């Protein structure tokens, strides 16, 4: 057998070289010995076969000639075929020579295709890249390039496709910015002769609102029909973005006919001229008073028959604990396993025994029958004791009766198990307390509620702070005093092991308060009524529906590494529609989707029928006889308490865990959900940018996605990891001590997907140190920063989108001095070149990246194998 020496495969052949090769082979073999004396020359290799290109829509045989840039399904299959098979592989290079730009207007799944030996065909795909530009129709022309192997270009050496342009979108978006009103109640203050309701109206949009009306009603009925105790309508003046208007409505005490429950509503007229279709703002409140005008605290003497040892009747519907596909009283159920994955834990695991959890919220009914046994007496705090006559300092009840957010949060964390009523919490033996932080605007409430106070209240002995709240978002920087508060918590509480701060990741995904990147896009055409004319078909297109309105990072506390940010998922294991996306998320937890069409969270509600949220609940009366429970609690507010409960289980499993141990265990044990989520790629100025990534696996092996953080909390897996993880084994925490800056200003190219890139070299750090979090600070001058997308790329090549373009809170925003945190690089080495990339996704404004820096939070984080 004659053997080839050296590299024989994939060598380009021509007829001439093949003839030479045949000669050389004969010479080589004659000298090689070992062969038969009857050796004859092998047959000459066959002549090169022809290579051809053909197009077809995927799954069909028909050839197509046109592709629509906005048709997401328009993946065209390009087949590379040999006229005859060859024993060795053929490598075909493809060239793009049309007017459409490869990488900017369309993508090829491969630019080089190999047809293996023995095969005749290979295929690849042409996909349009959506853009917002009026470029006119273009041509995609793909031609055969160099061919390696025994083949040559045949007659069908190229293909062409017309790329249909759909024109410019969002041409007038920058004129389409509006204000949005949000109303909140403060108080009321209950005096000897009157009750004063304080209303504040905030403009959470980006344009000044015009004058309208502000109305206030007080009633004996929660539907505000019938007799009105009081009403007043006043002029509401214009309000600037970020501004507010305050008004007091003072109701004489003798307007209330006696002891009872009273309801109040404040609402604005619709600012229709600025924002057609925008709903008017309203807020409901109220109070329960005694005959003398003092408040009746929310611990009524109600009979609730508890049956110790009997399973909680709502437990089978609690899909966050064990999702079997149950509907949880909604119209449709979820899917099995879309839950906290705590089957083993429910059977025989920790229950959070002895772990102190503070519900930092609107309030909490400390005497709720499903919470009371877990409430640690005397530890809660009511910030409104001074203005609510008759209330107690240690009873943080919520005065209004339209639902107490904190009471519902508390049930998810720590409702008592097996008492024969209601539900069970994720950690049903925790010790609960609450601070009604969201019911006050006192200057001291944050320090008091979040571990900075050792008396009235003492929050310094809390293990876990549940923070189911946030801002509407904006260009805010973390205040030094806030950083100091949380640093104190993680450095000093829990005897130096650090308290756990767990916050809702935000509900801003579909909350475009200021502007919509919405337009009509042509998605096809139909035959006209005359049978000839082609009528274009348009559909609404909204880029924010794909990439989100408000990023989770647009809240300063979410850019601190000391707080665990929690996203929300539904009972079908996909993102809850509202759950904000952002690089600051750590993990996700079950929360659901409103509880009507799809399951929400089943939890505790203010006690009593028609007290609380239970008007929105559809739990049958026989299963909720007193109206103490709801099935519709939703929002990242509902996800955070599931995470707090899970963390309580970990702290019971090993009380020596530090706050960083807990973060590590959650990240490492989290499971991927929504695994097939696709990327969103848009072309800007002939170059594409990814506005939503697929799941990434970073260089340390951790999976990350801006929609979910490291993934869904997996309690059983976390506890299994906890069993082997040595406490405080992640090295010394380097708390923002390592800063690397770039101070060379560069222009940001207008409307260009490639953007501008700058690098900073990170060096001089111990090799053992790995990234826990990194914060990028930057200063940008730009007249309309809503256009800007900002990416950070690590030395390992991991890309994190820290600010998506079209972030709604930056509508009409000028210049940025901001800081944004990313967790995507967890466990990676910080050493090497980091790249900041800033793109400007919309035309008409030019800006400059003035300076930027990276602040690292480092430790010894093991890679995830």
């Amino acid at each position, binding site marked *: 057998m004659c053997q080839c020496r050296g590299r024989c495969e994939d060598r380009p052949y021509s007829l001439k070289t093949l003839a030479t090769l045949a000669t050389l082979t004969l010479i080589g073999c004659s000298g090689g010995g070992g062969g038969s004396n009857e050796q004859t020359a092998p047959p000459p290799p066959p002549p090169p076969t022809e290579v051809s290109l053909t197009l077809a829509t995927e799954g069909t045989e028909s050839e197509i000639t046109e592709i629509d840039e906005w048709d997401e399904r328009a993946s065209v299959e390009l087949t590379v075929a040999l006229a005859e098979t060859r024993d060795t592989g053929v490598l075909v290079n493809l060239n793009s020579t049309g007017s459409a730009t490869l990488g900017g207007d369309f993508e090829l799944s491969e630019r080089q295709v190999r047809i293996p030996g023995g095969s005749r065909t290979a295929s690849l795909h042409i996909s349009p890249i959506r853009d917002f530009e009026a470029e006119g129709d273009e041509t995609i022309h793909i031609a055969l390039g160099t061919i390696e192997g025994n083949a040559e270009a045949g007659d069908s050496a190229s293909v062409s496709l017309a790329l249909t342009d759909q024109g410019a979108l969002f041409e007038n978006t920058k004129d389409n910015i509006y204000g949005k009103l949000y109303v909140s109640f403060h108080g009321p203050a209950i005096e000897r002769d009157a009750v004063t309701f304080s209303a504040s109206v905030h403009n959470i949009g980006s344009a000044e609102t015009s004058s309208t009306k502000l109305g206030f009603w007080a009633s004996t009925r929660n539907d505000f029909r019938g007799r009105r105790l009081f009403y007043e309508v006043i002029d509401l003046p214009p309000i*600037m973005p970020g501004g507010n208007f305050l008004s007091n409505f003072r109701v004489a005490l003798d307007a209330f006919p006696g002891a009872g429950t009273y309801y109040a509503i404040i609402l604005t007229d619709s600012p229709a001229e600025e924002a057609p279709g925008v709903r008017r703002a309203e807020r409901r409140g109220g109070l329960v008073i005694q005959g003398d005008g003092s408040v009746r605290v929310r611990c009524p003497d109600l009979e609730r028959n508890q049956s110790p040892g009997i399973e909680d009747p709502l437990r089978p519907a609690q899909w966050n604990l064990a999702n079997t596909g149950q509907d949880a009283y909604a119209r449709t159920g979820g899917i099995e396993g879309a839950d906290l994955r705590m089957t083993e834990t429910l059977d025989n695991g920790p229950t959070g025994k002895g772990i102190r959890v503070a519900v930092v919220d609107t309030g909490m009914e400390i005497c709720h029958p499903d919470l009371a046994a877990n409430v640690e007496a005397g530890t809660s705090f009511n910030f409104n004791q001074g203005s609510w006559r008759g209330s107690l300092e240690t009873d943080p009840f919520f005065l209004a009766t339209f639902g107490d957010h904190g009471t519902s949060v508390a049930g998810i964390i720590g409702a008592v198990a097996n008492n024969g009523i209601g539900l069970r919490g994720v950690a049903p033996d925790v010790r609960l307390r609450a601070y009604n932080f969201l019911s006050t605007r006192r200057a001291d409430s944050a320090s008091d509620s979040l571990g900075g106070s050792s008396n009235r209240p003492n929050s310094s002995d809390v293990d876990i702070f549940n923070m189911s709240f946030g801002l509407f978002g904006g260009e805010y920087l973390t205040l030094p005093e806030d950083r*100091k508060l949380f640093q104190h918590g993680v450095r000093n509480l829990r005897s130096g092991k650090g308290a756990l701060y767990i916050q809702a990741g935000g509900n801003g995904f579909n909350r475009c308060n200021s502007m919509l990147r919405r337009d009509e896009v042509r998605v096809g055409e139909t035959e006209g009524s005359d049978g000839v004319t082609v009528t274009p078909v348009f559909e609404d297109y909204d880029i924010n529906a794909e990439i989100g309105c408000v990023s989770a990072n647009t809240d300063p506390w979410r850019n601190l590494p000391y707080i665990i940010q929690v996203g929300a998922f539904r009972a079908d294991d996909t993102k809850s529609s509202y759950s904000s996306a952002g690089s600051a998320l750590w993990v996700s937890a079950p929360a659901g989707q409103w509880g009507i069409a799809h399951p929400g969270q089943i939890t505790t509600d203010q006690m009593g029928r028609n007290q609380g949220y239970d008007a929105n609940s559809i739990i049958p009366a026989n299963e909720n006889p007193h109206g103490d429970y709801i099935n519709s609690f939703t929002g990242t507010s509902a996800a955070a308490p599931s995470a707090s409960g899970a963390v309580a289980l970990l702290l019971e499993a090993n009380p020596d865990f530090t706050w960083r141990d807990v973060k590590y265990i959650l990240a490492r044990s989290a499971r991927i959900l929504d695994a097939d989520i696709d990327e969103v790629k848009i072309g800007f100025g002939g170059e594409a940018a990814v506005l939503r990534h697929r799941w990434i696996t970073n260089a340390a092996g951790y999976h990350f996605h801006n929609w979910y953080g490291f993934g869904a909390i997996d309690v059983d897996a976390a506890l299994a990891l906890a069993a082997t993880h040595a406490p405080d084994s992640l090295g010394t925490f380097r708390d923002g001590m390592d800063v690397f800056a770039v101070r060379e200003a560069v222009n940001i190219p207008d409307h260009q997907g490639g953007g501008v890139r700058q690098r900073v070299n990170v060096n001089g750090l111990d090799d053992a140190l790995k990234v826990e979090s990194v914060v990028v600070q930057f200063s940008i001058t730009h007249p309309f920063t809503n256009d800007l997308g900002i990416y950070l790329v690590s030395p390992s090549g991991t890309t994190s989108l820290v600010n998506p373009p079209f972030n709604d809170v930056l509508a009409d925003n000028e210049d940025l001095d901001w800081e944004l945190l990313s967790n995507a690089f967890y466990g990676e080495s910080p050493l090497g070149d980091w790249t900041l990339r800033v793109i400007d996704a919309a035309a008409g404004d030019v800006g400059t990246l003035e300076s930027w820096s990276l602040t690292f939070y480092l430790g010894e984080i093991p890679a995830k194998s």
Partner: protein
Amino acid sequence: MNHPQRTTHARSSVRLGLIGLVLLAISAHAQSPLMPARTMGANVLVLPANAILSEQVESVPGTRMSIVVEGDFRVYRARHKGKDHQVHVALDGPARRLAFDLKEGRFRDVLPSLRIEMDDYADFDTVVAQAGGTGGKIYEALGFALISLPDDVNPAEAAAELSASRSVTSATIQLQGPLYVPM
């Protein structure tokens, strides 16, 4: 049908307040009533609570302020870096004291409190009294204390006074933070 309206007490106070405002009207040519202060990472101009500035006052270069009464509102206006800003305050609404944030270019509420730092908090009660405060709380672990002020004390003036005190390391006004809401 009983439809009680807003008690008249507040309306009467408004009228008296308006008379007071006229008496307290400050000429634009007088010394600027705007007090610069630095707090919570912001440089601000603290505005008087019960005065009007009928002409625009340029308190810092490039920033002009006016305070006028229009209908039921006191209207604060600023022209800053070429943009106009305004906020309406109800004359019969809750007491408010405003500051203009020079970095963010917007009006913000000043809280009736001071944040102070002292080397030794043994004299804290004295400092509270010196500031005209109604009470206070020491956050030892965080290294500061808060002093509550009555509505009629200008926090910027109290902070300036305390800053001159040897026992106080720093005294700063407090601005109302953004609104935290349930998620």
